[in-house]
């Protein structure tokens, strides 16, 4: 008797999102298992970022449900979603430009910081100890992602590739159960991509973090993902292992275009 498959960590069921007349997502269903790396692919405008935005609570679906760790959380606000253990990075690098790299990553720890306002004001005792404890944790992430040298640099001054890495650090600082990465390797050269792949795989294997990433580079997708889902015009057109999806006719049509004669 085969054991029942473990329940999905994240379940997206029949989710639709409309912006006025534009149907960004059309009854998309997706199941993400705990501990896997799933890549979401599709041509531009397919709705991939929208899907991530719905999962992180920034948009609310007009129909459908989202279940995380078995519980329905379709209509939660973004900060509540973060509290559940979902962290993400953004397509256009949403770092806090006015703050240093260290402070940026420390903001990732905000959810873990319990504060007494009075003690904060005095920066004494428990407040100070907590601050230092989080600092130590963040330093471990900084070591892990090899960004020690730029700790104190204002984030706005970093080159694009490093900014993406800092953003990843910030997301990791929250110790997420599910990590959503929106085109983490966009604009990087081959070396940087290899580094990023290595980091992502390390995160997945060492910390067991489930990872969902949007990615355009097929070689990356083939290399690091366990599970691939393809979107086109807001609909899911393929879902399976990398090899299955790669040879799926609908996917090939979507990417290469097919004549509608």
């Amino acid at each position: 008797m085969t054991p029942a498959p473990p329940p999905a960590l994240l379940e997206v069921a029949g989710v639709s999102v409309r912006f006025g007349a534009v149907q960004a997502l059309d009854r998309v269903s997706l199941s993400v298992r705990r501990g896997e790396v799933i890549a979401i692919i599709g041509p531009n405008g397919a709705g991939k970022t929208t899907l991530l935005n719905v999962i992180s609570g920034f948009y609310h679906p007009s129909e459908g449900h989202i279940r995380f760790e078995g519980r329905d959380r379709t209509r939660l606000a973004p900060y509540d979603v973060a509290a559940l253990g979902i962290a993400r990075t953004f397509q256009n690098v949403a770092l806090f430009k006015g703050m240093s790299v260290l402070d940026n990553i420390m903001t990732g720890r905000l959810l873990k910081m319990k504060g007494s306002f009075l003690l904060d004001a005095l920066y004494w005792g428990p407040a100070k100890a907590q601050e230092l404890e989080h600092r130590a944790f963040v330093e471990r992430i900084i070591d892990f992602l090899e960004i020690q040298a730029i700790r104190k640099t204002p984030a706005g001054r970093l080159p694009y590739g490093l900014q993406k890495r800092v953003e990843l650090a910030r997301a990791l600082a929250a110790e997420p159960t599910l990590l959503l990465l929106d085109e983490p390797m966009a604009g990087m050269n081959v070396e940087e991509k290899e580094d990023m792949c290595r980091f992502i795989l390390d995160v997945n294997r060492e910390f067991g973090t489930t990872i969902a990433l949007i990615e355009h580079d097929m070689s990356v997708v083939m290399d690091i993902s366990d599970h691939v889902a393809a979107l086109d015009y807001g609909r899911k057109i393929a879902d399976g292992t990398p090899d299955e999806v790669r040879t799926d006719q609908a996917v090939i049509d979507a990417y290469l275009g097919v004549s509608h004669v």
Partner: protein
Amino acid sequence: MIYREAGQFKTSYAADQAVFPIVQDRVVVGAFLALAFVLPPALASEYWLQAVLIPFLVYAMATVGLNLLTGYAGQVSLGTGGFMAVGAYAAFKLTTGFPGLSILLVFVLAGVIAALVGIVFGLPSLRIKGFYLAVATLAAQFFLIWLFNKVGWFVNYASSGTITAPPRTVMGFMVTGPEATAAARYVVALGLVVVFGVVAKNLVRGRIGRSWMAIRDRDIAAEIIGVRPLRTKLLAFAISSFYCGIAGSMLVFLFLGSAETQAFDINQSFLVLFMVIIGGLGSILGSFLGAAFIVLTPIFLTNAPHWLGLDISVALQKQIEVMIFGGLIIFFLIVEPHGLARLWQIAKEKLRLWPFPH
């Protein structure tokens, strides 16, 4: 040569996060503060205390307050005058209603009341951003001033419409009212500013400051990280209004002696905003520098013509002052949006390397 920090290694995170990580800084600041408490009361003339040092402290407090809200949390506010008024009138009512209460406690309570009012007027900030919010704070400003003008209860039905600081003592020294010496008032003001300045610095370098700056820089990303926008913004309004409230009571009780609503009008709001911009948005040190600059400029303008042998009418002097402020705002925004605080940092960098050019 002067400012070498080579050889000073930080061996713990605690040392790295200290406010003054470099030994020279610690020594200088410590000495400066000690002297600040002792020298002026002993040596400075009445004029210097009354016209320069005390107003500087009052405005420094207000500027720190506004900087927390606008510079750190990114919420533009033109209602500073109104919140200062709340503090002043609250302090007046508290001390006249409960003469036995220590005046220091009265100041703090007045600040708390201002904080509560700040929360109320900060509620719109969840829906409104940027200059829209500035307009909403104008509503606060004009409404509050109107309220204090119209409702006689706030001035204890005085026919003149002014509030006057009654005589109060701290540890036996007369610190408010006509009998209080400028020196005594100065020491109280300095004490308040030092205490609350330290508090402000602690707030901004910890989690509260970070959540403010996150909201300021990219509020949507901040929310997705887990920062709760309403709570964070309201906290900023509350704390900022607290500081402005205390500044308002200081203005009346320790500086002017008596005041009417004109002391808190829209020009006051602009003035403090200028101090924040010129001093440096998002910098506690900048708040002090900006306040010093704006307090000193009129003094300079009054006296400079005499030194140069010219004679300018009071009106002309005021006009030049206004033009200089306006021009400097533009200048700083173009050249150094981080204001005097950044210039100070650059100067320190140069000092580190002196006499080498780079």
